[in-house]
């Protein structure tokens, strides 16, 4: 398993990020961090990044079966981190463990630590409802509530007591999800009358409306046609200005298009087919210069 030089960001991506990331001096690269590689185009400035998730030796079991091996890496603020890998390698297991969506599954057990801004997500005093409010999630299959478009967005804020300017909040969420123009005059219509791509953007809007810190997306475009997929991908690129995004995808091109960093998981054939993190690095590194041969095989389509 390789840890990338993850304290810093450079090159074109770095320039894009520079304007909006709060630079936190105390998290500047420590002396222990790997030396930065030479910047490709003439030395963009190095930027310190806030760590949102610090995942340490995370292992997940369903009953007696281990689904995910000991996984360690960090997820950074205002970046899109893509989780890729073959079917059944534990991508969903991994992402659902970040906001405790697996708690309801019988036999689910987690080892290691998931630190969210330094706090253990699975800490004894932590309320999982509060965790999920901060860490929103969008699922593979669009799952709008059988309510009106408006009520789909307004439901969670109402629950949380965000009743002031609800109309404005709904509009803002729909605008951010690039759906406002399409539904502006039909907010009272059933959400089920929307197309699949619109429904998925509605689900993103719904997640955004409670002002989360992180958005987890589990193959959000896999049930959608190419046009809808493209609009979801566009959305990822704008939403990362405001949110930290973790997206599961089994589509390599998609990962290459939207992600800043990529975590590649695979099924470890040696260890009882346990999902294992192979490599986590910047997107360019994963696709152009992966350190692990399994990563290279997978991203070039030579995966067996």
């Amino acid at each position, binding site marked *: 398993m390789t840890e990338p030089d993850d304290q810093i960001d450079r090159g074109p991506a770095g320039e894009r990020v520079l304007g909006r990331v709060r630079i936190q001096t105390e998290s500047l690269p420590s002396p222990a961090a790997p030396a930065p590689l030479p910047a490709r185009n003439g030395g963009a400035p190095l930027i310190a990044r806030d760590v949102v998730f610090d995942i340490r030796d995370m292992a997940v079991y369903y009953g007696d079966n281990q689904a995910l091996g000991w996984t360690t890496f960090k997820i950074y603020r205002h970046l899109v981190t893509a989780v890729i890998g073959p079917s059944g390698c534990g991508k969903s297991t991994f992402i659902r463990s970040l906001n405790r969506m697996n708690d309801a599954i019988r036999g689910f057990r987690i080892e290691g630590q998931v630190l969210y801004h330094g706090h253990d997500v699975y800490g004894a005093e932590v309320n999982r409802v509060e965790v*999920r409010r*901060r860490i929103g999630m969008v699922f593979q299959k669009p799952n709008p509530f059988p309510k009106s478009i408006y009520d789909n967005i307004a439901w969670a804020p109402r*629950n949380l007591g965000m009743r002031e300017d609800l109309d404005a909040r709904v509009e803002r969420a729909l605008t951010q999800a690039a759906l406002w123009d399409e539904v502006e005059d039909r907010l009272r219509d*059933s959400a089920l009358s929307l197309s699949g791509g619109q429904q998925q953007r509605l*689900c993103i809007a719904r*997640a955004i409306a409670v002002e989360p810190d992180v958005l987890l997306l589990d193959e959000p475009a896999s049930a959608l046609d190419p046009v809808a997929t493209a609009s979801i991908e566009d959305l990822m690129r704008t939403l990362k200005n405001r949110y930290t995004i973790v997206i599961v995808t089994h589509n390599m091109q998609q990962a290459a298009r939207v992600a800043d960093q990529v975590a590649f998981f695979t099924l470890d054939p040696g260890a009882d087919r346990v999902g294992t993190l192979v490599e986590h690095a910047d997107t360019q590194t994963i696709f152009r210069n992966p350190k692990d041969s399994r990563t290279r095989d997978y991203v070039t389509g030579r995966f067996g």
Partner: protein
Amino acid sequence: MSALRLRLRPRAAIGAEAARAGRTGDRILFALCAGAGLLAVFVLGEVVYQVISGARPAISKFGLGFLVHSRWAPNFSAFGAAQALVGTVITSIIALSIATPLGIAIAVYLAMMAPPAVRTVVGPLVEMLAAIPSVIVGFWGLIVFSPFVANHIEPALHNVLGFMPLFGAAQTTGFSLLTAGLVLTIMVLPIIAALSRDLFLTVPVELTEGAAALGATRWEIIRGVVLPTTASGVAAATVLGLGRALGEAIAVLQVVGDGTGIHSSLFQPGETLAARIANEFTSPESKLHIPSLFYLALILLVIGLVTSVLARMIATRFDVHRSLA
């Protein structure tokens, strides 16, 4: 090439035969289903017709005044439905207003909260409660429950709510509209609970997970997602329960007592439409007695049909799938 074609042809013929056989099967199935459907319509029409024609003499004699007159004295040829009508309405209201929230609560618990062990034991028990023959429930009501109501429930209610005429002084026997309503509650409860539980289990996990991922509490998920998506079905379950409460004769007869007149207190004995019909049909005391009982049956039938239609309308309003799409 030609050999291939030759070999293919018989196969195609076999396929066609199979298709034809399938078509015959389809036709038989269709005829059976259509026949069954028509039979249901016919039976409903026949029952309504017989009830109306049986009631005709009483309808022409008493008219709609029948509904508001409470005196029922067959040997004086005095017939009025008001007492039984009020009794039916009150016992059904008692039964539904307790059994609906309680049944939904049981269903929510069984479908969404109970540990698997509890679920697998309590679930079938609830269904078995619905399968107890009503005469046995009535028997239990007569021997065990009525004294309990007289000695404990009536005094307690009177102490707390005695300022309302509804909860007058406790009676000695426990044979009362209240007891009848509570016995009906016990009979209606498992119907609402079991059906609602099955409905709650059909709510897609995607929806409840979607709600949970928005930081909703369990109660918010139940109130905001589970109940609204199943509202029409729960309403239908309630109507089924109401049907049983309206129509139950035997168990009510065993605990409602033998009252005359309409009283303000629930602790007084009373009468319901179904109980009176079952009780008196075999022993008419005057010429209009049987037609009057048919008239009671007609009232019961109309109440049943109207509530079912109303429930359907309310359900459609609640049902977001249909009303918004």
